[in-house]
């Protein structure tokens, strides 16, 4: 990188980038700000709202009304659990597709992705009946299973693209040294693929955390994640902007923080094989 960047140019870019960045982030920022104001102030015009005194009343009310820790715990179990399970199932498959590709590998991948196109609303009743019959309604196990299957195609595909980047010679060498298939995957491949696996994991935790149809429909109390927590604040009687903001902030904060801390990882890993 020998190109010189003048400071003026850098300053202009800085202003534009910050402007656009803040604009995109603004709805979230505004929600967070609103959550710290009283209900009556939240509907005032924006300047008046900012001037009004800070208040934690909405958080206090949300805290007393809802069992946040239970919903949070369920969200964590469901999103992390399903991601790990999906990884366990997908790693061997992605390995095989990447290193022993058959004639139909590509079709197989595309078919896997196409299973995601079934509209969930259309199959709710059959699913609900099925879940009831095997006793999985309102269980974390049931939700983990569903979320695993929903995200499996994406996981397989992401891993496949990472594995393909790994030069085959390394595996050949390992095989020459007499490594078994298992140890080849475990000790040679996996360490090399850790960045890819990590970002796959991140993306899927995010997708599972934010999934709002099955998680809402198949749970009632015991396994209900944060999506249900939100549904109890979405349009109550009376003024609700501040409470809704507080509940929203509480629901998105964990994943937002996780995302921010692992931002570099996500940026590096989210390629889907798009980088050559």
């Amino acid at each position, binding site marked *: 990188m020998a190109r010189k960047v003048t400071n003026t140019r850098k300053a202009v870019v800085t202003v534009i980038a910050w402007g656009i960045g803040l604009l995109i982030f603004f709805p979230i920022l505004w929600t967070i700000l609103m959550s710290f104001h009283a209900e009556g102030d939240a509907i005032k015009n924006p300047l008046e709202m900012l001037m009004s005194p800070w208040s934690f009343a909405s958080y206090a009310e949300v805290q007393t009304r809802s069992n946040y820790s239970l919903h949070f715990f369920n969200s964590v179990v469901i999103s992390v659990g399903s991601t790990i399970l999906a990884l366990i199932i997908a790693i061997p498959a992605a390995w095989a597709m990447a290193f022993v590709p058959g004639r139909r590998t590509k079709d197989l991948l595309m078919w896997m992705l196409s299973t995601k196109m079934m509209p969930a609303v259309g199959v709710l009743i059959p699913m609900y009946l099925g879940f009831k019959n095997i006793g999985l*309604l309102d269980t974390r196990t049931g939700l983990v299973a569903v979320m695993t299957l929903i995200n499996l195609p994406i996981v397989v595909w992401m891993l496949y693209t990472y594995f393909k980047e790994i030069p085959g010679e390394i595996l050949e060498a390992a095989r020459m040294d007499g490594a078994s298939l298992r140890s080849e995957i475990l000790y040679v491949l996996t360490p090399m693929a850790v960045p890819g696996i990590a970002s796959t994991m991140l993306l899927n935790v995010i997708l599972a955390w934010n999934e709002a149809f099955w998680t809402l429909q198949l749970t*009632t109390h015991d396994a209900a994640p944060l999506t249900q927590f939100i*549904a*109890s*604040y979405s*349009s*109550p*009687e009376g*003024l609700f902007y501040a409470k809704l903001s507080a509940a929203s902030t509480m629901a998105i904060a964990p994943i937002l923080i996780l995302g921010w801390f692992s931002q570099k990882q996500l940026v590096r890993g989210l390629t889907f094989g798009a980088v050559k």
Partner: protein
Amino acid sequence: MHMTLRALFGATAALTFAGMAAAATTEITVATVNNGDMIRMQGLMDDFYAKHPDIHVNWVTLEENVLRQKVTTDIATKGGQFDVLTIGTYEVPIWGKQGWLVSLDDLPADYKKDDLLPAIAGGLTVDGHLYASPFYGESSMVMYRKDLMDKAGLKMPDAPTWADIKKAADAMTDKAHEIYGICLRGKAGWGENMAFLTAMSNSFGAKWFDMKWHPQFDQKPWADTINFYLDLMKADGPPGASNNGFNENLALFQQGHCGMWIDATVAASFVTGKDSTVADKVGFALAPDNGLGKRGNWLWAWSLAIPAGSAKVEAAKTFIDWATNPDYLALVASKEGWANVPPGTRKSLYENPEYAKVPFAKMTLDSINSADPTHPTVDPVPYTGVQFVAIPEFQGFATETGQQFSAALAGTTSAADALKNSQELVTKAMTKAGYIK
């Protein structure tokens, strides 16, 4: 990152398990709507636990549409996820008839079944069995701003006609100061704009079906209703009215943007409550009529019922008794004042001199008493229900009809087209369901 995650995981797990340690009791799951009176009940649970330490209640509080959909899915598939359901006067007769609800005839004597308002209890009774216990009952009425009426030099009669309403709305509207003469529901939904419009249409002599279950949107009374509604709202309504439901209008009224609002009687305690900027300026009147013998008010009761699939019927009955018994009203009154007592369920409440001091008490009772779900319309009809038709298919086609009228209000379609489309889609739905042979 992994460490943080694991630490978080551990901490929450510990929290949850600590919370569950005390649960050697019967746990019941109660599904309820996130309305003010239900939220208040959740804050009063200490009283219940003091009286019934062996029962623990798991609340599932949801927004109305989500609640209705989840509860319906569960009861229709006999999923057995809930022990107590919060449902309305639309569901109770249909579900009771299907045998999906547990009869509440054997509640303890101090429940005082005879004390329930007859209009309300009637709507929750099927073939002589009470299938749900009313938590609060409501009709609809006119809420208006006394100060704005004075300013306009008008006086609101206790029993206004639609012409009175139109005149008052025109006089109060001051768009430059964001004051809109009338706020009415426009958001599509059988429980939103169609509840209002159906009740309103009754006072115009309209009906959903004739005795042979043929839809009546192609008849003049419906056209009159819709045209009057649209004219009124276009001249004097707030912007974005086609997205306004109960909550949106409540917020508008509380902030002083509405001259009049015709909606649920329970709103009275909100518009005169602490969040309201116009609390001391609100007057009440009966829902309007057109001199045809029916007023445009509805009848509804959010009620507690037990699904037939529940394995904990006894605990569920204990809870329902606690929540809807006269003692509960006294409990709320002692903690939060009489104005916040769940209204519209018991005669004794309206005979109580303390409650009579509440400004909207009498108008609420009069409104409830003037609604007749068994004879809702001017002409005879084959159905019951004031602002709904008590058949299972209603919520589907009424919501689609609601979309049509919502679009007419938004101006994206004409009144004539909305009526024509409604007629078509209801005819189709009724044919599919086998009512029209």
